[in-house]
């Protein structure tokens, strides 16, 4: 049985066991909002501001963030959130089961032109040789864009939202796995909102090796990297919202021990204004 099928059944079984304890559902959607969208509604927005994403790869510049587009469409079953398409298998106020596809994240550190790096078009790529190891230059790899696919389970309990996804690389580059788990809770819920997210990302050895391995020199294990994120929003008008976020990820030693990695963490921050186009 394929990984996607096995992990789908595993998540369903876990949800069935844990479901009754989580059965106090979040309030149902009653109107379009930041958390609820009308079926068939296309939302397009653009965030304009200033931010950066630090780059743990040796010899690579930090990634500036100036213009961040966002697209969201939810049909009855199909949905698309920017670069992530998916299909909803089941949805209630307490639980949602989706099948999703999502781009492999780590390529953003190697290519400025990765679709997940949204920046002004004049930014140039850094050179591909940037690491010196005992006077022998090590070629920083140029990984391809990859897509991972698999099941996703979201569960809602009052204001708390948890999500778990089990993903497999389906574009044939490394055939590795990723498991993502996170929880979010609101800290401020008034005209302005402040939410905290915390979670972990587990990457299989094959995934870590594709990005951070060095042939004949470094053969990594799997990696478990935790993160925490704060997100702030203050609507200013019907179309304009002040937005800011800070995301901190602590990289597993399996990634950091790679000779092409020089930082133990990735910090992403942005502050600006979001304009609702549609």
């Amino acid at each position, binding site marked *: 049985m394929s990984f996607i099928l096995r992990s789908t059944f595993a998540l369903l079984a876990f949800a069935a066991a844990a479901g009754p304890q989580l059965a106090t559902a979040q309030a149902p959607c009653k109107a379009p909002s930041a958390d609820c969208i*009308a079926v068939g*509604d296309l939302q397009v927005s653009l965030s304009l501001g200033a931010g950066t994403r630090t780059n743990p790869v040796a010899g690579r510049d930090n990634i500036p963030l100036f213009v961040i587009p966002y697209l969201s469409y939810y049909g009855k079953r199909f949905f698309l959130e920017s670069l992530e398409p998916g299909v909803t298998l089941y949805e209630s106020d307490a639980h949602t089961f989706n099948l999703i596809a999502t781009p492999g994240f780590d390529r953003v550190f190697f290519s400025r032109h990765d679709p997940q790096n949204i920046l002004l078009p004049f930014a140039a790529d850094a050179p591909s040789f940037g690491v010196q190891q005992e006077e022998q230059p090590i070629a920083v790899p140029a990984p391809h864009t990859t897509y991972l696919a698999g099941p996703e389970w979201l569960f809602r309990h009052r204001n708390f939202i948890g999500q778990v996804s089990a993903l497999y690389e389906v574009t044939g580059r490394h055939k590795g796995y990723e498991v993502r788990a996170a929880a979010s809770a609101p800290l401020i819920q008034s005209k302005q909102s402040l939410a905290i997210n915390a*979670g972990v990302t587990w990457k299989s050895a094959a995934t870590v090796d594709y990005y951070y391995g060095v042939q004949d020199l470094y053969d990594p294990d799997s990696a478990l990297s935790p993160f925490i994120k704060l997100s702030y929003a203050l609507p200013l008008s019907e179309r304009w919202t002040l937005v800011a976020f800070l995301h901190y990820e602590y990289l597993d030693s399996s990634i950091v021990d790679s000779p092409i990695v020089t930082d133990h963490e990735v910090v992403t921050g942005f502050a600006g204004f979001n304009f609702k186009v549609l």
Partner: protein
Amino acid sequence: MRPRVCTLAGDAATCNTTVHAEWRSPRNESLCLLIVDRPEVRRCWEDHQQGVYSVEVSFTEDLVVELRDPELDRVLASQAIAVIRQALLLRHKRRPPWNIF
């Protein structure tokens, strides 16, 4: 009279439409056509057997159109344009924290 129904989709709050009203009688009539609570909308006919009237209106609740005598004392006929709000089907958005927003 048309339309008979105005459907509000999504988060639309107001119906904006042109009301077409038409009356006929086998004998000459003197009467006025008006819209309830819209004093600016009134059209009167004297010794006519038929009449047609069109007017652009905006409304958020059911609109009642009446035919009355010239003194506006008696209601001879009335019809309503119903406002129906289309039920929105809503879903929770995902908002995964790995994404920027």
